[in-house]
């Protein structure tokens, strides 16, 4: 190993280890009930972000100097069973896709971290926020740099959990918690699709290595090492995973619900990074998408439908954060179309530009409302609204329908509830009733003591 390789290995390890260390410190302090002060938490977060970003920049500079476009950093096998040729390889890759995404994550996490220090000052859940935030940051770095599909899945899961917990951050209120649960449920199904895709890829190629799935070249070059039919199967699963994570159609319903979380997390997750993770996944496996024309058509269609729905829905929302969330969805939809068309660099640039812009918009949103109010108070009337050119061309009935469609958020939640959740829950409630009857019959008595328990025994103030 020459000096350059050693430098790459060292800095690469620092990039990956830094967020993990932050998560470990904050996690242990929470588990041991030894809370850190706000200043210490904030300082640790800033240091971790810096120790991730600076080595990342150094690696980029070194890559430019030595003129290489691909730097693998192998941390060895996490788990291996040599006889079965089973390896869970911890491999991270620095290339033209991962480095921009890594630096974007660092910049935005750093900015939002600094913003949050003031925003949540003296909040009871300050430490909790930063713990989940550290998990998110760790997940983003892991996902961005993942060189194997399993490593990508690890990061993907961490991002999902931290997102759900942060949506439910204001957990004294029921709505954020319900919405956090909703986000988590969609994510779990998306994760299931991802995991099945990963294992299926293993079965097809014996490869977990993302590079190995592309038989030649590094991103954005590369040709899928699997057949068209196999690509269709795996690609469809990955598309479901990406749709769940990026709130594409028909999973868009969780996006406005996710705005129940604190503004900084809304900005970083649903304006910038988390919502683009699905698009990032599609970019990473874009050679697989191109192996099947039908799959490409599916990607383009999904992107178009999502962008159209997002555009309609963002225009009629009565909440600024929700409106911005749907605007994000529109852009993500367009990005997905670009990926489907094979415009990989354009999609990457679009992601970076959109993430930065949307983060700033979301962070600005709470004060913008106050500025609007001040302006309206100053002029003594509502601010004039510009009319849309569409109103001249569309019939009124259609306008009404579009308005209803947008206001009801595309009926997606209603449809999912009615066609998926309700039948599922009804079926299992029926099974539960059947079990109840059976146990009653076997006991010849009321078999369930849990039917008689109090709803809130903790509020009675007496011991159990």
């Amino acid at each position, binding site marked *: 190993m020459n000096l350059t390789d050693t430098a790459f290995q060292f800095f690469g390890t620092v990039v990956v280890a830094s967020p993990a260390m932050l998560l470990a410190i904050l996690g242990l302090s929470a*588990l041991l*009930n030894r809370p850190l002060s706000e200043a210490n938490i904030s300082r640790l977060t800033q240091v971790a972000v810096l120790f991730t970003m600076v080595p990342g920049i150094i690696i980029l500079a070194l890559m430019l100097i030595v003129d290489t476009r*691909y730097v*693998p950093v*192998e941390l060895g*096998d996490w788990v*291996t*069973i040599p*006889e*079965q*040729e*089973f*390896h*869970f*390889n911890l491999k991270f890759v620095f290339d033209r896709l991962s480095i921009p995404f890594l630096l974007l994550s660092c910049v935005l996490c750093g900015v939002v971290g600094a913003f949050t220090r003031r925003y949540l000052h003296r909040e*009871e859940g300050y430490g909790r926020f930063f713990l989940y935030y550290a998990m998110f940051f760790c997940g983003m770095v892991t996902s961005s740099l993942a060189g*194997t599909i*399993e490593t990508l899945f690890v990061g993907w*899961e*961490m991002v999902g*959990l931290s997102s759900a917990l942060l949506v*439910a951050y204001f*957990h*004294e209120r*029921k709505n954020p*918690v319900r919405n*956090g*649960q909703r986000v*988590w449920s969609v994510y779990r199904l998306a994760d*299931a699709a991802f995991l099945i895709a990963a*294992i*299926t890829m*293993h*079965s097809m190629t*014996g*490869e977990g*290595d993302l*590079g*190995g799935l592309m038989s*030649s070249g590094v991103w954005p070059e590369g040709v899928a090492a699997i057949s068209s*039919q*196999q690509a269709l*199967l795996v690609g469809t699963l990955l598309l479901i995973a990406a749709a769940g994570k990026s709130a594409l159609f028909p999973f868009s319903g969780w996006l406005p619900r996710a705005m129940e979380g604190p503004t900084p997390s809304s900005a970083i997750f649903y304006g910038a990074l988390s919502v683009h993770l699905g698009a990032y996944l599609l970019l990473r496996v874009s050679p697989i998408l191109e192996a099947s024309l039908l799959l490409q058509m599916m990607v383009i269609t999904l992107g178009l439908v999502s962008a159209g729905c997002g555009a309609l829905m963002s225009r009629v929302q009565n909440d600024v954060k929700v409106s911005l969330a749907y605007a994000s969805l529109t852009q993500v939809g367009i990005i997905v179309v670009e990926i489907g068309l094979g415009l990989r660099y354009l999609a990457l640039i679009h992601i970076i530009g959109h993430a930065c812009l949307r983060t700033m918009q979301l962070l600005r949103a709470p004060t913008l409302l106050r500025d609007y109010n001040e302006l309206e108070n100053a002029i003594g009337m509502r601010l004039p609204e510009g009319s849309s050119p569409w109103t001249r061309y569309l019939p009124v009935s259609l306008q009404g329908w579009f308005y209803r469609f947008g206001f009801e958020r595309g009926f997606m939640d209603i449809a999912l509830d009615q066609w998926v959740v309700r039948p599922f*829950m009804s*079926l*299992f409630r029926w*099974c*539960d009733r059947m079990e109840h009857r059976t146990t009653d019959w*076997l*006991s*010849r008595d009321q*078999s*369930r*003591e*849990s039917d008689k328990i*109090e709803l809130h*025994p*903790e509020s009675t103030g*007496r011991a*159990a």
Partner: protein
Amino acid sequence: MPELHFPWIEVSILVPLLGAIWIHFMGQRENLLRHAIVICAITFVLTVGELIDFVIIGAFEAHDHWLFLDWLFDRDIFVVDELSAFQLPLAALIFLVTIMSTLRTKTPRFSLKLALVSESLLLATFSCRTSWTLVALLAASTIPPYLELRQRGRCTRIYTLHMGLFVALMVSGWAWLSRVDATSSAALIPGALLTAAALLRSGIAPFHLWIADLFEKGTFGTAILFTTPLVGAYAVMRLVLPIAPSWALQSIAILSLVTAVYAGGMALVQREARRMFCYILLSQSSLVLVGLELVTPIGLTGALCLWLSVGLSLTGFGITLRSIESRISRISLADYHGLYRQMPIFSGFFLLTGLASIGFPATVGFVGMELLIEGAVDVYPLVGTMVVIAAALNGIAVLWAYFRIFTGRHNPTLIPMHARLSENVAVLILSLLILGGGLVPQPGVASRYHAAKELTRQRQGNPMTEDADHSPDHAPAHVEVSTSALPATNIVTPLANKRLASSKAKDPTQ
């Protein structure tokens, strides 16, 4: 057979038994719980010593150096081997943390004496090779919960019916098997009886009602102690796996899989925390059985890893719920309780153990779940998919329960809700094991793979098992795949072609 350097096995079985007698003669005293904790701690240390000694010896199996009970049992009845070496400390740990997390106010309800007897029986069971002694121990271990139900004045019909059937099937199956050649087709019917018994003890649907009933009517502690060590899986491993044909095992794997998905769905519709926990446990323990019954080395390794992780994580999950119950009584999941502020440690631990149980990355369950899914996909892709769906349903249930219990409007209480020192210690021990096992999984996986290989070798010794295609040292030449769920291309390639390049970084610059 190699010998351990100390009679770890017999001493670890006798200590809780003598402890139970000691506690019986102590009567009702203030410090009874402390004595029980000390006895369980000594037992745990002994089982850890046994494991270390066994690892140092490096053999596949070993028995005690000096034997006290050789007048009572055959010399080779109690052995520690690759299959049970990790299960013994796990079982002792489950008892230790459960008793540690018992509040003193609960000792009149939760019989420490019966718990110690159960521990002794369980350790004897896990140290016992296939024999009449194992059958007797499996049967005897069903008695303590029955006695507790009787003491509490609860209806025992469901429990008695199921466990009576379990014992009857097991005894008749073993008696029949003892009279026929286990390597001939005459072993099929007794094998089926033993399989039915093992599935009944594991709570495979539709024979799962007794587990939910035990959680309803027994103390939470006893229910945890009786179910989380997964004795049913042990029965499958010892009594069924060595003799059952592959086609039979894979049929049972489907049953287990249906149970895993069914219980995952049922966990989501429960309105009380114990029942929710019971169904998550059922779902996860069924996944362990799925892996055991796939009988591929990878699948078996995954199942054995998952067994350890389920034992650890669901015990932690259970004792968290139990600690909350100890303070506020049975927990309704119909509304939010807002206990986060009063129980920050428990809330974190609840989330950690719950996520570990579903195989979240960096926890002890992750690698086991990955291996299990990998093994399942190698045999039937659809099975792998169903395993993932079951895990997803459990994941949704875990966070749902977390939100219901710890979030919502905070209610001030007159009862001290914070974790006591012994509860904190229990939480910390389990947390370290869950995270340690998740971050450094290789030693555990290597040892479990060894055990899986041995299990496969045992099966190959029996021509009835038709398992030649799953040799641990040889890749299967061809794996039959149900193509209904797949495109026409051959998805499952031979294992021999797998991952040769995955550990080697490509140099794309060339």
